[in-house]
């Protein structure tokens, strides 16, 4: 993905506690020691960057905020350099506050239950194997770019009923919205407009030729009064499903493979005990949680004893919460058979990720199929691992050598 416009420059961080910046290259590369430093300083830290932004550093502070819809609004869900007017039906229900939130969420939940995901599993297994077929003979691969990246995008395209062959188009929009859009408003607007136009075309097609996919499902949905959803709501929810369904799980699969590439003991154990994979997936989700959401403080309050003022954003870091040693013993270690794991990788409270059952199924299938066919792999010392920036964290370049080391 190339981009002609350089992002807005942020001065390098020299004081993490009072001037943190989650887009700083040091944070992008290795956020874990930074979170420890922030947590040691306070349960809630603040930066003047991004027009004023708090970050809860403990599990408890993250939980308090996630469960407090009175003082914290979800109308803005990404911490960015600008705060443009809030668009109506931007991406319901993730951008919805009560009371609009519940009906918008209930609409999307039935297609994503564990039983619904079981029906999708054979398709996911086929996609994973098709991707592996494409590189297994090469002896090396960028596992992020050629494997992890295409699993969730093809899954959500399949569910939405849009061509899986358009995956690169979707991936580019997500990059513009979630990464470039933090510092460049025009990129975000362009991507949103292109996505809306794309979905409008598909909606039109289904008016004459109804289908059984998620686009038709939303078009046919009725509210409590029996009325169809406004077009802006249908479009907003479709945009959400595409945005939320792509680089989140791509990141989680990539981070998991990265861990297994550099931890042969864990890799060998999962090959010997494939029944442990679901438990390991939860631990990999805890240790390398991809998603940091945002809230906007709309009313002054106190979180874990720290005053927070209206008008600031909140970097609601589920990944940092999941590394809190008060909540998890050996929080900084990956323990693939961890039994007690109340992790918050999919959020807490009413905005729990709608697609969590899908993501879990994708991660399990992606690891099962990879380990079954490629039991031996390691990081390519000649290559570089590169991580994404901002809202969703995961490897974007993951060079592996395949097969036993010579």
């Amino acid at each position, binding site marked *: 993905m190339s981009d002609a416009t350089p992002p807005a420059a942020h001065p390098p961080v020299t004081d993490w506690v009072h001037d943190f910046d989650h887009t700083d290259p040091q944070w992008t590369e290795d956020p874990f020691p930074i979170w420890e430093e922030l947590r040691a300083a306070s349960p809630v830290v603040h930066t003047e960057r991004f027009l004023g932004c708090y970050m809860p550093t403990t599990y408890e502070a993250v939980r308090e905020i996630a469960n407090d819809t009175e003082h914290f609004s979800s109308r803005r869900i990404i911490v960015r350099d600008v705060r443009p007017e809030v668009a109506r039906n931007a991406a319901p229900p993730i951008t919805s506050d009560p009371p609009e939130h519940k009906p918008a969420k*209930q609409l999307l*939940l*039935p297609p*994503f*239950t*564990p*039983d619904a995901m079981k029906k999708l599993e054979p398709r996911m297994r086929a996609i994973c194997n098709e991707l592996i077929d494409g590189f297994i003979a090469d002896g090396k691969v960028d596992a992020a770019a050629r494997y992890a990246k295409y699993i969730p995008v093809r899954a959500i395209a399949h569910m939405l009923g849009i061509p899986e062959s358009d995956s690169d188009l979707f991936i580019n929009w997500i990059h513009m919205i979630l990464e470039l859009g933090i510092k460049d408003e025009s990129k975000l607007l362009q991507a949103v407009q292109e996505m809306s136009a794309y979905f409008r075309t598909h909606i039109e097609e289904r008016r004459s030729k109804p289908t059984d996919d998620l686009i038709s499902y939303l078009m046919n949905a009725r509210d409590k009064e029996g009325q169809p959803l406004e077009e802006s709501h249908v479009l907003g929810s479709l945009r959400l499903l595409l945005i939320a369904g792509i680089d989140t799980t791509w990141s989680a699969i990539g981070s998991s493979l990265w861990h297994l590439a550099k931890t042969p003991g864990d890799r060998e154990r999962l090959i010997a005990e494939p029944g442990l994979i*679901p438990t390991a997936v*939860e631990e990999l989700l805890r240790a390398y949680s991809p998603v940091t959401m945002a809230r906007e403080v709309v009313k002054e309050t106190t979180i874990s004893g720290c005053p927070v003022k209206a008008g600031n954003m909140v970097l609601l870091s589920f990944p940092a919460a999941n590394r809190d040693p008060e909540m998890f013993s050996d929080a900084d270690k990956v323990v693939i058979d961890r*039994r*007690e*794991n*109340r*992790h*918050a990788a*999919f959020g*807490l*409270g*009413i905005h*729990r990720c709608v697609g*969590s*059952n899908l993501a*879990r199924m994708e991660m399990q299938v992606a690891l099962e199929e990879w380990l079954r066919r490629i039991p031996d792999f390691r990081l390519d010392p000649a290559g570089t691992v590169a991580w994404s920036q901002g809202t969703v964290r995961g490897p974007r370049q993951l060079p592996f050598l395949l097969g036993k080391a010579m």
Partner: protein
Amino acid sequence: MAERLRVHVDPDKCQGHARCKALAPELFELDEYGNAHEAGDGVVPPGLEDKAWLAKSNCPEIAIDVIEE
């Protein structure tokens, strides 16, 4: 040792993470939205006590009670 265990899901706290159903499918059921409730009267059959505690300790919303009766 308690006579028997009973599980209960607080419907106001449950957000449908479905961890309980994955870890203890015999003890929990999901509704059409994927939100959980205890199967039947919630009484834990002998031999499933460990699964009941596991479900409780893995619920991100702390929505599950295990009651010793």
